């Protein structure tokens, strides 16, 4: 064989080996520093797709948390059905999911610890959160969970200022105006999860290569563009495919939508319903820190609607404001996210837990 052939063969060997070593080192780094990926399973009893129970999620891109997935999509508790005593279900989106903090720091776990310290009766709070969900989803699932989990005494719905309007979703509760009437329907999730996809995710998890799944998702959602462009008037050019239209429904829509869902929720369950609202307070805007809720008008109307239907509405605005004034800190945000923005930090979860303990203690 010629010298150049040997040279190129040696080069190929060096580069393949180098690639393999780099990949191993990178996997080790990701095992520590990158979000993990878990497969989903369909649970027919509650008609939901949930992360596979028993697995642990590692969250790094905001906060630094570990979450143990339990049965029925409840985090931090292996099987809520096996827990004796009364239960309170905490419904919410990623704020209840709270992947940014460890399990003991989540609202539900802090509630359970505080309750045990201060009360003799057994009461367990279980979080049924999933990122992107909304009141329109909880009104559907609450009656279903009541049938599956024994001794549910109350539903607590976690609301916050970052709530978006009731947009049509591929999966979940949807609202629509039909003339003057609002109609509601629920798009169920698919019942079958590809076993090939689950096995692939498990394989990648085992070797610390979860990041490949995130890359695959990024590529799947990438908006390819090869056509010529046309920029708008701007000082800094922004490529068209990165512009996302921002659509907000008007205040009437929010108000009427909430009113409709509150009525439906009250009609579909006889358990106690509590709404707990975490405003984005304090917040930073144009060089100043503000401690008044920007959504106060809408919240006032939702509070009224709740009152009319016998639902307790707990507003955390004063609690958050007092916390900020006393400590100079925000109940939101982490060192690896923008200050005063993002999800609740452990202190924020503790404030919510304390408020809920106080509320249910009075209900004895």
């Amino acid at each position: 064989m010629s010298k150049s052939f040997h040279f190129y063969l040696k080069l190929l060997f060096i580069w393949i080996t180098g690639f393999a070593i780099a990949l191993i080192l990178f996997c080790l780094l990701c095992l520590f520093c990158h979000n993990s990926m878990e497969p989903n399973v369909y649970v027919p009893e509650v008609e939901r797709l949930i992360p596979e129970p028993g697995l642990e999620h590692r969250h790094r891109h905001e906060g630094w948390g570990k979450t143990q997935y339990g049965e029925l999509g409840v985090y931090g508790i292996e099987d809520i059905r096996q827990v004796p005593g009364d239960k309170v279900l905490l419904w919410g989106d990623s704020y209840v999911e709270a992947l940014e903090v460890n399990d003991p720091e989540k609202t539900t776990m802090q509630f359970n610890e505080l309750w045990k310290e201060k009360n003799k009766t057994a009461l367990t709070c279980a979080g049924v959160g999933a990122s992107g969900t909304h009141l329109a989803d909880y009104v559907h699932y609450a009656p279903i969970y009541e049938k599956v989990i024994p001794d549910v005494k109350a539903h607590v719905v976690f609301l916050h200022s970052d709530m978006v309007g009731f947009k049509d979703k591929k999966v979940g509760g949807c609202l629509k105006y039909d003339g003057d009437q609002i109609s509601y329907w629920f798009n169920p999730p698919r019942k079958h999860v590809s076993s090939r996809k689950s096995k692939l995710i498990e394989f990648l998890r085992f070797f610390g290569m979860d990041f490949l799944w995130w890359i695959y998702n990024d590529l799947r959602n990438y908006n390819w563009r090869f056509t010529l462009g046309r920029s708008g008037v701007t000082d800094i050019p922004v490529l068209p495919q990165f512009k996302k239209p921002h659509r907000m429904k008007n205040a009437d829509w929010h108000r009427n939508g909430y009113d409709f869902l509150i009525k439906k929720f009250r009609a579909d369950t006889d358990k106690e319903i509590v709404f707990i609202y975490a405003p984005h307070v304090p917040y930073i805007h144009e060089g100043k820190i503000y401690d008044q809720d920007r959504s106060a008008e809408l919240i006032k109307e939702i509070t009224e609607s709740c009152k009319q239907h016998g639902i307790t509405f707990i507003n955390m605005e004063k609690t958050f404001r007092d916390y900020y004034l006393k400590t100079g800190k925000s109940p939101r945000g982490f060192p690896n996210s923008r200050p005063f923005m993002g999800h609740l930090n452990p202190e924020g979860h503790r404030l919510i837990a304390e408020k809920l303990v106080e509320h249910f203690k009075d209900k004895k």
Partner: protein
Amino acid sequence: MLFSQLEYFVLFVIIVILIGVIRKNVIQKTILLVASYYFYAYWDWRFLSLILISTAVDYFTGLLLGKTENTRKRKILLFISVLVNLGLLGVFKYYNFFISSFADVLTPFGFKTGSLEIILPIGISFYTFQTMSYTIDVYRKKLDVCHNLLDFALFVAFFPQLVAGPIVRAAHFIPQLKRPRHIHLLNIYCGVRIFIMGLFKKVVLADNLASFVDPVFENPSVFSGPTLWFAIIAYALQIYADFSGYSEMAIGSARILGFVFPRNFNMPYIAKNFSEFWQRWHISLSSWLRDYLYIPLGGNRKGPSRTFINLMLTMLLGGLWHGAAWTFIFWGGLHGAALSIQRVVDMVKFKNVGISSKFMKGIVGWAVTFLTVLIAWVFFRAQTFEKSILYLKRMFLMSSGISWFYPMAVIIVIGMFIAHVFFVLNHEKRLKLPINNIISPIILFFMLFLVIVFHPTSFNPFIYFQF
């Protein structure tokens, strides 16, 4: 189109394959020119017309300059070229700035001023300077006239350096077009190596630093003094990593295609004085300003007072080149003042200032230079004078406020500091990554994985896109 976009990789691979397969020089250059126009039109096809205007005017000006020895005619031709190029810049980049700046002066006299809704064409500051350098060099007879329109058009529009430099001189680039491209393994490796390093600097270092710097600069009044100090250091490293990273991607892309571009940055933050800083920072622009502005104004040949005026004028215009705002001009002025003060220090030859050790002089020089550069960056970044003064006040008074030290920014700042120290201790020798050493693929692939996985989720255009 950005270098960090997937579309760019697809386009580039196609170009490399075509260039590799097609050996005829004319066809290769045509492919590169079409690709370059597509690259620019990807942002906004309407502004291709400006590149075509600049190309046509300077090409024909060059031809006419080559045909006449009459001094007056040559001056007129040069004037036309400079007028057209600066005219394009003036209208598209500076019109609204000048109008708004002088509105307060003009309005009492009955002049009505109105702004235009003008899109700032990307790269206009770069390609106009590039074509002007050609005409000026031809006028000075330092460069032969380019008689080939295809060569000249490609020199103006060559996509790796079209939108954000480096500003490549015709004398360096056009001769490289005389021979056909051969896609060679060593060129591919060198180019890919430089490209990956540039991509790593831009996506992993600069964009992650931006996640910290942007919120701090948006709201300086709420953050503490130490946070503001850390943010300005982070910004200094961000703009360096962003711009040098982009330049390296441009240089790497060109290298893969067989073109050699000069380095545009040379570790500027190790500079021990301001002259050295400008020999290391945005080298293609600083050398352009030196050759086509500072030296023609007289440089340092007409006495100290004139030298200071020339320095100040050059740096003020250099600041204006960066952006249509008084803060950029002020930033340039600060550097001009610093260079002038350095001249005074050098002239007076402060020998006995209590620092006898060369090492200590170096440290003091570095500290003064770095601190001054940091202060100047505040004006560059803060967008208004009010915010700049507020920022500096809170920084130097160590005001109280929210303390935030974004962990990724801390890691990057420490890492870049170590890299700089290593570079200095190694006598400015760069890390060698030869193709046949296993360390090379380990480092390069690791960097690539970091780019792919640890890129920030928000989109960050190159900082210098706005210039």
